[in-house]
């Protein structure tokens, strides 16, 4: 194979990462330092885990707006339980169970009520965020347990543990989606629901499963976030769902469903994390960062649509 052909095989997102790295290197000398690299890895790991959920929802021709709120709720539940004197493990397990239940409820409503996923998960977003506020009476709850802190702050051979967990999750879901019948069925569900139904696939339980898994992923990300921050506050997950959707879309997932790769979403999450980090280091205010991320998402979608024509 000739070199140009090989270059054509590299996904566009890799180029995007290289361009971003170069740009931010020009902007700030610290940007390419080892410490900042580890920082980006850690920051991107939470978004990366949540993005799998955004990806799964979009792949199955739905959307999940409740992920950020579940991130908040899971962190809050675990912190509150630990403050009440629960051990780390039961506190985390209960928080995860709550997250799965919230996701499964989304799935149940989407599968059986025929209400659009956008509306169902928008409702769940409000409900979970409100629940976190009520539980904590609007306050920030400390989560300073030393064992708990390992989850978000620990590292293995200088690599943050959370980044390893994120990578392992991608490995797992990459395998599930490509190597198992279940994965094929999720693609079928998003690609042509009618065909899936006529092929004997149990479409409704599959939808419930997808959203329950989303809940689990968001809950887990919530634990990692609370652990890294050493606290749970009722708004710390806000907006992650949109970055997750952006990561999936930038990573090549089709909003029409049925098309996309989980590793593309990983690249999308890394791009967004680098963007956020780089813009931070360049001293851009939060509001302006949102403008830039929004523009990039629209730009990528426009290019994608034009290319397919």
């Amino acid at each position, binding site marked *: 194979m000739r070199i140009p052909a090989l270059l054509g095989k590299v996904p566009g997102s890799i180029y995007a990462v290289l361009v971003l790295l170069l740009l931010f290197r020009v902007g700030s000398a610290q940007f390419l330092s080892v410490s900042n690299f580890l920082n980006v890895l850690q920051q991107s790991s939470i978004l990366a885990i949540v993005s799998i959920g955004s990806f799964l929802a979009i792949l199955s021709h739905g959307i999940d707006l409740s992920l950020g709120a579940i991130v908040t709720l899971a962190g809050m539940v675990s912190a509150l339980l630990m403050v009440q004197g629960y051990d780390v493990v039961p506190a985390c397990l209960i928080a995860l169970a709550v997250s799965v239940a919230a996701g499964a409820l989304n799935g149940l409503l989407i599968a059986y009520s025929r209400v659009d996923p956008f509306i169902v998960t928008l409702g769940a977003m409000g409900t979970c965020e409100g629940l976190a506020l009520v539980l904590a009476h609007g306050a920030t709850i400390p989560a300073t347990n030393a064992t708990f802190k390992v989850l978000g702050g620990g590292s293995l051979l200088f690599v943050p543990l959370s980044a390893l967990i994120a990578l392992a999750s991608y490995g797992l879901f990459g395998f599930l989606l490509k*190597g*198992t*019948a279940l994965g*094929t*069925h999720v*693609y*079928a569900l998003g*690609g*042509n629901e*009618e*065909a*899936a*139904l*006529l*092929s*004997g*696939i149990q479409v409704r339980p599959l939808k419930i499963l997808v959203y329950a898994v989303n809940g689990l992923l968001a809950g887990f990300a919530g634990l990692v976030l609370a652990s890294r921050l050493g606290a749970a506050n009722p708004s710390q997950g806000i907006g992650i769902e949109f970055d997750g959707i952006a990561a999936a879309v930038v990573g090549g997932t089709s909003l029409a469903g*049925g*098309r996309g790769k989980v590793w593309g979403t990983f690249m999308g999450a890394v791009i967004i994390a680098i963007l956020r980090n780089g813009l931070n280091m360049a001293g851009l205010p939060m509001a302006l960062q949102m403008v830039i991320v929004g523009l990039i998402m629209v730009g990528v979608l426009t290019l994608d649509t034009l290319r397919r024509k």
Partner: protein
Amino acid sequence: MQHTENLPTTGSMPPPHVDLLRLEHITKQFPGVKALDDVSFDLRPSEVHVLLGENGAGKSTLMKVLAGVYPADSGRIVLNGQPVQIHSPRQARTHGISIIYQEFNLVPDLTVGQNIFLGREPRTAIGLVDRKALAAGARKFLDFLNADIDVGAKIHSLGVAQQQLVEVAKALSLESCILIMDEPTATLSEPEIQRLFETIRSLKQRGVSIIYISHRLQEIRQIGDRVTVLRDGRAVGTRPIAETSLDGLIQMMVGRSVSQRRIRTRNTAGPREVLRVDSLRRGRILKDISLVVREGEIVALAGLVGSGRTELARAIFGIDPVDSGTISLMGRTLANPSPAACIRSGMGFLPENRKEDGLAQILPVKDNIVQASLRKLFPWGLLDHGLERATARKYIQDLSMACPSVFRMTRFLSGGTQQKVVLAKWLCTESGFLIFDEPTRGIDVGAKEEIHRLMHTLAERGVGILMISSELPEVLSLSDRVYVMREGAITRELVTERTSQEEIIGFAAGGK
């Protein structure tokens, strides 16, 4: 499950004198229409049985009853001598009945193999997808069909004919002994059609029976063994194809009683051309279309569903882009056709689906009536509610609409009255040229005649009308000239007074 051992074989089939399948006295009523009226149909082993009929004759409904999509109101289905109940598409599959629709049921982003075994993936000992078995199984069915398709290719990278073969392979893998094909050649090219026929012949040899829905008269004589003709929801007769003639089949399809009273009592066409279309082309959909409509003339566009009539109307009204060709209205060429530009130049379009495309269902009648004339009625952009109401009232009276008030929400009106609202909307624009797409579909008989009369009156006032209609009696009683379309091209121009249903359908179906 053994996926690779279930190619159908002749050995397991019942002897040929036994009917494989009988549909007995099937009746199916939809609101307002009797779609199937006491229809009986039988299928023998290794037979290609053609189901022939005009649009709306009941072919698809009958097959949907068999495939478990609709329940029948009465009648029964007998398979291999046993009465069976088929309540869902999945139940139909367990009985060995597969249906291939015109719109394929494949997942575009999965591979050929994954689609063939979707929901029935072969597993390895630890429950993972056995990719080798899946590829080998898919290969076996495709090889049987002589299909040179990569089992690892994604569906969206295949052409229509290849996708159709994948559907056939999938049906084979389901051990189907009855395969229903709904207009399988509608989107195929000639060599692809011949390939499909070879496939059908080899399926027959393997003992698969095929119900072949079509209205292309030439091809059914190449491939069919027997033919059953449906008309207006009733079975007209079943004949061995060898004993039929083209004319005989056409007679059966359209019926003998063609003594329709002509509504259009005199030809009011003037010399001025209100619409002129020259060499309009759009891919494979519209092939070099030229036509003319004069003032005061009603021109019909006849043809089968899928022949490109609606696509032509949409192109003329500037909804869909075209590759080349020109459209002139009232002698002026439209530079950039768009609905807005067409309306400004005096064109109106009454779409086929008036519920979805023609009317805003939740708005009051008055809003719908003035919707396309806002610029004309209120040139300064400010609404004059008194004028709006007065205008609406005038048309409600003129068209004698069964509508108590101009404030009535449109969706509460009957189909016939709704069509009158659409008509009023375009009368209000005072257009000189109107396109009617299926003007009386789903409208009861009384209202139908009124709509016809209104169209005639419009023509008398000098409006040029292009009417798309699948109902040949309507074409014959209302039009002055007929353009017949087939496969995206105009194949014939006829003078209505000197033609017949048989002649029109002959040109539309390609029989002559």
